[in-house]
């Protein structure tokens, strides 16, 4: 009990500090999601060290860095998916819509409805295309057939997939191509009307043309949402993101506007990484 009060209190303090810090800056809207000194342990392994980042609506943030640097670990903190892993512990504040979600009392189900996630491997359910999208909203209480139909169409249009599948909504989603499956997974996330979408290397299993389609899609869904994408592909980061954060050995080393990160890196580690001195 004491712990959670403390975290909540420190969360509020951070929020206040943030508000005063932002008062003089050009940002008008408060960030939808930000973290303060987030640490992650897998049992004894310290996988992420004091990471503080801010995410705004309408912005795409890329998390880059070599394998095992903690970028995916950080992403999986933002919807507390790490809590599903035995022995994983998250400390620090994760402030979403002005309250700290990293507390034992947080309603994970409610949280994950508004923070969507897309995985590395397209993972549509072994159900029809229609059911893939309608299934979760139905579980969350939307039973009306007409509303569901409308939601399915809206979500598929949002993911630029409607024209390709509108005649085969009852067909199995697993017969779609890899790129279509990944767009279906995005549509599935959109159906819950999230204001943050986390993408964990969404294109690494796709061919270049499907990758291009997903990248274009990201720009279009960023309207009114914070998009956070983990990517190994640095060209992809420069093509799609507004801001970039570079992770190395469990540490968030440098963050800034994407252009600055790639054209004028400030830290030596990032320079080395961009020059391919380690990978």
């Amino acid at each position, binding site marked *: 009990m004491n712990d959670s009060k403390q975290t909540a209190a420190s969360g509020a303090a951070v929020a206040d500090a943030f508000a005063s810090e932002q008062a003089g800056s050009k940002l008008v809207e408060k960030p939808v999601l930000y973290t303060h000194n987030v640490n992650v342990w897998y049992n004894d392994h310290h996988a992420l060290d004091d990471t503080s980042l801010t995410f705004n609506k309408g912005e795409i943030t890329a998390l880059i860095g070599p394998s095992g640097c903690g970028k995916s670990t950080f992403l999986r903190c933002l919807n507390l998916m790490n809590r599903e892993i035995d022995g994983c512990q998250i400390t620090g504040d994760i402030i979403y819509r002005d309250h700290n979600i990293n507390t034992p009392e947080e309603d994970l189900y409610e949280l994950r409805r508004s923070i969507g996630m897309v995985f590395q491997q397209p993972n549509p359910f072994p159900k029809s295309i229609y059911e893939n999208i309608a299934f979760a909203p139905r579980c969350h209480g939307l039973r009306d057939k007409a509303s569901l139909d409308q939601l399915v169409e809206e979500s598929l249009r949002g993911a630029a997939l409607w024209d390709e599948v509108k005649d085969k909504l009852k067909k*199995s*989603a697993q017969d779609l191509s890899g790129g279509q499956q990944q767009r279906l997974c995005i549509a599935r996330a959109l159906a819950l009307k999230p204001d943050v979408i986390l993408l964990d290397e969404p294109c690494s299993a796709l061919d270049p043309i499907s990758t291009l389609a997903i990248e274009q899609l990201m720009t279009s869904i960023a309207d009114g949402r914070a998009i956070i994408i983990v990517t190994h592909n640095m060209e992809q980061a420069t093509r799609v993101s507004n801001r970039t954060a570079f992770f190395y050995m469990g540490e968030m080393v440098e963050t800034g506007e994407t252009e600055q990160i790639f054209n004028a890196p400030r830290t030596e580690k990032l320079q080395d990484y961009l020059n391919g001195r380690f990978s």
Partner: protein
Amino acid sequence: MLNPVESVSGANGAAGVGTSGSGSVGSVYDPRAERARRDALRRRAIAQDKFATGVLTVIIALVLAIVGAMVFYILFEGVGTLVQPGFLTERARANGTAGGVAYQLFDSFFLLVLTLLISVPVSLGAAVFLVEYAPDGPVKRIASTAVETLSSLPSIVVGMFGFLVFSVGFGWKYSIISGAVALTMFNIPILVRAIQQALEDVPRAQRDACLAMGLTRWEATVHVLIPSAMSAIVTGVVLSAGRVFGEAAALLFTSGMSSPVRLNFLSLNFNSPSCAWNIFRPGESLAVHIYKIYGEGSAEAQQIVWGTAALLMICVLIFNVAARIAGRAISRKVTGQ
């Protein structure tokens, strides 16, 4: 004049000896010898491969021959009786040494259905708990060990336990329900393992996708994991049904070694000992029937034994084929058209 030449040729000779000597330990590359060595190795590998293929082919041929011989022999001995009019539709007479096996056939299916009605829900629950809910720790380890131990108990021991607990302890005497519960204990470990395997084979990504959409573990299990695993689950259930159907030892002391002399299939008086649907009446499965009348010795009894054996074998074969067909059909249905 000769001396220098001699000395030169001598030096040459010495050098020649030196080269050939070092060649034999491999410092000088001799392409022909090297190729010969590799060819020999290659030939040996190919010969080994051919030999292994031959041995494996013989082994598998032997297995097929044993199965084929058994099936053929049992059919050869049994089909004559099996196709006799009335064998499948008439009741046994003279303590099983004459007449048909209609009641035994019915009792076998009755036992099977009751067993599955009890064991499928229990096994499904246990497997879901072990795969989806139990944290890695002592509970899971103990439960898994318990299931494994149960699966390696000899069925005669399960039968003894069933007799002492259900027939005597619960006062169910020799009864269909007593037999069905004993078969359940025999069947649960097989089913738990099959369903556990089926659930574990559903990709981790499916689970994550559900949780990431704010669904509970239970919703994920009911709406995604079980449907995904359904074809494997059904295959497992039908295959286990084949084993239950042919089980004799666990039934000897529980459901008994005789069916009532006359069963009334139209009666709905569940307390009557002659009501076919009464679960507290004794019953006899096909396998127990074979065991019982094999010792009778008369030629007619032998004919009935072979006929029953053929019938049992055909039923089990049908279960196996049905398992595949059902599994495939369900997997098509669940994943859309």
